């Protein structure tokens, strides 16, 4: 039986002038798979994310989501088709409250998202936003303006907003960045508790977060995929060791 990949990247390239930020990247992510993308700074991981999500459309190759070609779609169309994402640096609406941020995240994929009618407290999307705040343990801060949140709370809200739209493919760009060591096990628990039918693609520098959460690991360097292996093999892979410890050691 050959299942349709949740995400298929075929020879994806992204150039900025003469710079090849992503070059000839090809891999499939199957439905329900947890994939970590690792690599040193400048390897092209975040550019690859931005290419998949439509912020930087690919300059070559194609991307399909559950068999549908999304290569040329705008970011909001990709989100509506089931891609949810976080950013390396939290991109939140600082002038709005936590509840408003989550409500917008829930509402963005609804057919009636464009509306001039203010929601009531009993609006199903408002209730869904509160439920997500509860899940992310920020329910006590619903009325707080986002610019008043600590870094850790901002990361929690960031992940909550990505989950709030009910994505089929969740893409997390360094979710543990800036979190204290005490907060990391909680993040790992959250990742492990995600429903198994949710496909997860994760960029993470912290191996202690990335490897336990992943079924398969893709390592990138200079914009290209250099290794693809299971987490138990990745640490002992000589290419990975060369990348992280230096080629001459």
């Amino acid at each position: 039986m050959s299942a349709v990949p949740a995400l298929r990247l075929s020879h994806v390239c992204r150039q900025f002038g003469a710079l090849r930020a992503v070059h000839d990247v090809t891999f499939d992510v199957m439905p329900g798979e947890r994939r970590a993308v690792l690599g040193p700074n400048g390897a092209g991981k975040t550019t690859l994310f931005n290419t998949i999500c439509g912020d930087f459309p690919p300059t070559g190759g194609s991307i399909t989501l559950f068999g549908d070609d999304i290569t040329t779609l705008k970011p909001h169309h990709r989100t509506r088709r089931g891609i949810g994402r976080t950013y390396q640096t939290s991109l939140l609406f600082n002038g709005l409250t936590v509840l408003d941020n989550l409500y917008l995240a829930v509402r963005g994929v609804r057919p009636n998202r464009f509306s001039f009618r203010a929601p009531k407290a009993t609006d199903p999307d408002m209730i869904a936003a509160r439920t997500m705040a509860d899940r992310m343990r920020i329910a006590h801060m619903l009325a707080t303006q986002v610019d008043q949140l600590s870094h850790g709370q901002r990361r929690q809200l960031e992940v909550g907003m990505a989950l709030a739209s009910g994505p089929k493919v969740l893409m997390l760009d360094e979710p543990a960045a800036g979190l204290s060591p005490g907060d990391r096990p909680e993040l790992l628990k959250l990742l492990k508790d995600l429903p198994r039918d949710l496909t997860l693609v994760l960029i993470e520098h912290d191996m202690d977060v990335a490897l336990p959460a992943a079924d398969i690991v893709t390592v990138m360097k200079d914009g290209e995929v250099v290794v693809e292996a299971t987490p138990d093999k990745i640490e002992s892979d000589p290419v990975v060791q060369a990348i992280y410890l230096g080629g001459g050691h």
Partner: protein
Amino acid sequence: MTPARTTVISLIGLAVLVVAPLVLLAILPQNQAQFWTSNILGRGLVFGLIALSLTFLATYGGFISLAQMTVAGVAGYTVAVLTQGAVPTIVGGLPYALTIPAGLFASVLAGLLIGAISVKTRDIYLLMITLALAMGVFRFVETNIAWFNGYEGIRNVVGPDIFGLSFRSTYVFYYSVVASCAVLYFGILYLVRSPFGLVLQGIRDNPRRVSALGYNVGQHRIAAFGVAGFIAGCGGVLATIYNIGISPGSIGLGASVNILIISVIGGLGHPIGAFVGSIIFTVFDTFAATIYDRERFNTLIGLVFLIIVLVSPDGVVGLKGRLMALLKPKQAKEAKSP
């Protein structure tokens, strides 16, 4: 400030505007009371409405447009061109019951068009493109005699009768303006709590994230300019009736910049700033020539603008916050000292 507190303060402000003509009649001779009611408060509120359209765009969307006076002018010219009795007759023959909605429709279309043309621009580039559009429309109107009577403009737009009362009556005009301002102001406070308003504020804070949540940023931006077009159109229709006509000078560079000055004086942090700024501006615009020098009254207005911007970049509305911030450390220091 919480929404409930904002509503209470706004209602108090509205009550003050409602009773102001009665207070003026009680303390001033009738002709002076009417002058203050119509020429200061009424005119101030009319231009406040046009400034409200800019404040709405700036406060909630982060868009500074210099074309809001042009959009108001589109509404005003549409009414003037179509209305029965306007001089010269260009199309004419239609009652105000049709020409005013037509004017508002035209202003919404103009707003949507400006929004669509400028949809990819922000900050100084948005300012420049809206200024270019405003000046293009101004020159077109000024040089087109067949449709707009060129430099002379169109006169005798006296306004409709409301329940048998003439719009030229000071108090019919004033309370019509107050009612329009109240409906549009509270309409904005409601609208910014809707999904459309929240998305607009999201675009102000982070357009990339808005798109990543599934919203079409361009569509919301254009719609915001359409909403602002309606607000400016209401101001444009009232301004045309107040002035008994419209000419290109009312949509020129000076008039366009005045709307920006009004908004900055009042403060771009909250829609109420548009009305506060416009009443301050109208007072100086009216009396500066008398109290300073007829030839140099713009200098006085400029000085007032400069002082307000230097003392409180958030405008008059932001003054309270700045004073509180200044007093707080002092109070904390006093509390610490034995």
